[in-house]
Every structure is written in structure tokens, then in C-alpha cells.
């Protein structure tokens, strides 16, 4: 059950440098169980790098990162990651992709689980179609299905709306809202204010690697946020 008092994830003074470029700079962040958090920022603000650090795809240059998953310290089993790439094999069918990942995650009854996730995302009709032939929206839903196969506690989403049309976005938001209601923790990174504000309770702005603004959604005037965002981004100066 969600317990907001225990932070699921804690970052302190996390910095990532690529040579002289600082992609992520001095980030302090706490995410509690059941949070839905959106991090906004212009291109090159370091959002993707921050997410990759949390996903343990890359190590921070300095700083600490702690997970508090109950009873299991294996963060890989507890994190689901949707990157801007699909992480799916174009030559395999939707079902084969899910089955492959289910086996990789050592899920019992992999067949059933893969079929179940396809149904949940409304992709049964495309079960035996190669994902290379999927539309962008279908592929994105399959990507989400892949990330959710192992029932992760923390779901990381990197620009999930890229390339989706209106209808696709709406469908995708519906699915995410469902996940939120299930009590899953969501961390969304995007440069698109609309979807993030609609979905998330907490918002942050990252610019030039730093987190420059954060607020809880309840206290936020959503129309005023846009103004605030551009102000914050301009103050930092765009890269």
C-alpha cells in the first residue's frame, strides 16, 4: 500500500558531467510511494540524463542515489523504464517481444503475462504483427506494456508523447491515469507542458542540469504555470 512518509527514491547532490558539460547539476530529489511527478525542461536541460541515472543506465559523476524498495534491493526488478526509444525488436511480433522480456525478467507463466499485458493495452488484434509495422501509438503502448511486465513500483517515462497524435496521446494518458490509480509511482519527463500538468500531482522544472522550480499540483495555478516555466527557462538562459 502506498505510504507517502517513506521516500521511494532519494537523490542527493547528484551531478553528471560529460567532459566539461554538466548534464545534471546538484540535483536533490525525493519521490514518495504513489507520487506522480513531472519534470519539465527545454531540450538539453538534462532531463533524459537524470532519468537514465535513476534507471541505473548511467552512473552519476558525484552524489548519492538511494532506493527504498521493500524487501528487495534489486532496483532493476522494481523500475520500469520507457525511453524515447521503444526498446522493442522490430523484427519480432508484439507478443514475441513481450514474451522475450517476460522471460528475461524471469516472470512465471510468461505466456499468460504477455497475453494479459497485450489485452490491457488493447493490442490483442496486433498480437502477431511485427512491431516494425506498428503505428507510433501502438508501439508506444507496447513499450509501456514492456515496461510494466514485471510490475515495477516506479515507472520512468521519457518524453512518452513524442510522435503521438491527439487520439494516441489521449489513449496513452488514459492508461497512465489508470496506473496512477493503481498506486504506482510515476516519474515523467517532458518538454510538453499540457500532458504533464494534466496527469501529475507534482511538477518540477529542470534547466541547464539544475532543478530550478518545484511545486505540488494542488497549489498550482495551471494557466499561470506556463508563464512561470518560460520565466524560469529564460532566466537560466537556454543552451
Amino acid at each position, binding site marked *: 500500500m502506498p505510504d507517502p512518509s517513506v521516500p521511494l527514491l532519494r537523490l542527493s547532490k547528484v551531478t553528471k*558531467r*560529460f*567532459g*566539461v558539460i*554538466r548534464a545534471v547539476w*546538484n540535483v536533490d530529489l525525493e519521490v514518495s510511494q504513489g507520487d506522480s511527478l513531472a519534470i519539465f525542461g527545454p531540450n538539453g536541460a538534462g532531463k533524459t540524463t537524470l532519468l537514465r541515472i535513476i534507471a541505473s543506465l548511467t*552512473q552519476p*559523476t558525484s552524489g548519492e542515489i538511494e532506493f527504498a524498495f521493500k524487501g528487495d534491493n534489486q532496483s532493476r526488478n522494481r523500475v520500469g523504464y520507457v525511453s524515447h526509444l521503444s526498446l522493442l525488436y522490430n523484427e519480432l511480433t508484439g507478443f514475441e517481444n513481450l514474451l522475450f522480456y517476460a522471460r528475461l525478467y524471469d516472470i512465471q507463466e510468461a505466456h499468460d503475462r504477455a497475453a494479459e499485458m497485450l489485452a490491457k493495452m488493447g493490442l490483442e488484434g496486433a498480437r502477431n504483427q511485427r512491431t516494425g509495422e506498428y503505428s507510433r501509438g501502438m508501439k508506444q503502448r507496447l513499450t509501456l506494456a514492456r515496461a510494466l511486465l514485471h510490475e515495477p513500483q516506479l515507472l520512468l517515462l521519457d518524453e512518452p508523447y513524442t510522435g503521438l497524435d491527439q487520439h494516441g496521446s489521449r489513449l496513452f494518458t488514459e492508461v497512465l491515469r489508470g496506473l496512477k490509480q493503481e498506486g504506482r509511482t510515476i516519474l515523467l519527463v517532458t518538454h510538453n507542458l499540457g500532458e504533464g500538468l494534466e496527469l501529475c500531482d507534482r511538477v518540477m522544472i529542470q534547466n541547464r542540469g539544475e532543478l530550478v522550480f518545484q511545486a505540488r499540483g494542488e497549489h498550482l495555478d495551471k494557466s499561470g504555470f506556463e508563464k512561470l516555466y518560460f520565466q524560469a527557462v529564460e532566466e537560466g538562459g537556454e543552451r
Partner: protein
Amino acid sequence: MIPLYFLMVLALYGAFLYAPTEREMGEVQRIFYFHVGAAWNCFLAFFGVFLGGVGYLITRKQSWDHLAASCTEVGVVFTTIVLVTGPIWARPIWNTWWPWGDPRVMTTMVLWLIYVAYLMLRSSLPEGETKYKYCAVFGIIGFLDVPIVWFSIRWWRTIHPVVITSSGAELEPEMIHALFVAVIAMTVLCVTLVMLRMAMRLNSSMAEEVTDAVQRV
């Protein structure tokens, strides 16, 4: 630095004045002192690359990568010295620039290729832990190849015409003295160069840290 200058001058004296002229090979044989001195240091330097790689993968401390990188650079320079002095000596003596089939020559050449490839890998990667790790891995793989290269060429050679019989007759005592000094001088040179390169790398990463700290304030 001062002992190094002293040693180098002593080595030059030993090789060109102190040691007698070789009876059959003549003056050109004098290159042998530096050739051997450089050759031993190749292995020393490349062992340093291996050590630095293992050290980095275990500790993740950047100083190990500094060691590996510096050793590669210096090792490649010394290998180049070996590969340049070798043919100069070989041509008048064995009537061939490049005795294919001699395990030492071939091993040195393969080593040169491996570590030049290492430098290319280094320069094609962006600064960061990934780079240090990849280089460490390649440094280890490269060093593992040394015994295989050696045996491969040794065994292969047994059924091929042997170009070189024995690398030299008995050495005069003066020659041994000169060789001894040359090897020591070259080794000190090698170690000094590695240390200089490491110091340079350390300074530049410290400068980066200072810049960071200033920006953080």
C-alpha cells in the same frame, strides 16, 4: 630530472665511446644498446596498461586510468623506437629490413598495432567513466594477447625458413656494462615520462574540479 640527464649521458658515453666496436657487425651494432633498452620498456609500459585497467575496473578511481593512459602513450613511443632501430640494425646484418617470422619482431609489431588501436579508441570516446572502462577492458584484452602472439609466431616459425639464427655472439664485458647502463637509463626515462604524463592528467582533472567548486558557490 637531474639523475635522468646524468644517466642518459652516461648511457650515450657507454654505447658510443666505452663499448668496443663489434667485430663483425661494426658501428651499427651500437644501436643495440638503445634497441634492447627500449624493447624491455615496452613490456614494462604495457604491463602498466594492464595493471591500470585492472585497477580501474576494481576501484573505479580515475588515477588508475591515468596510469593506463600514460603507460600506453609512453609504451607506444618506446615500441616505435624499437621498430625504427630494429630495421636500421637488421638491414646491414641480416640483409633484410623486416625479418618476418622472428617472434620478437612480430610480437613487437602486433603490440604496436594493439596499442595504437587503444589510443584510437581513447580519442574516439567522450570523456567520462565509460571511456575509462572501455579503455581498461581493451588494455586487458590486449595484454592477454601477448603470450598468444609469442607462441603463435614461435611455433609457426618452426616450419618456416629461419631467417635469424642467434641474435648475437658472446658480448664483451664492456658491452655488457654499456647495455646495463643503457637499460637502466631507458627504464628511468620510461618511468619519468609516465609520471610526467600522469601528473599532467592529474593537474587537468584537478583544474576541472576547482572550476566545478567555483561554479557551485
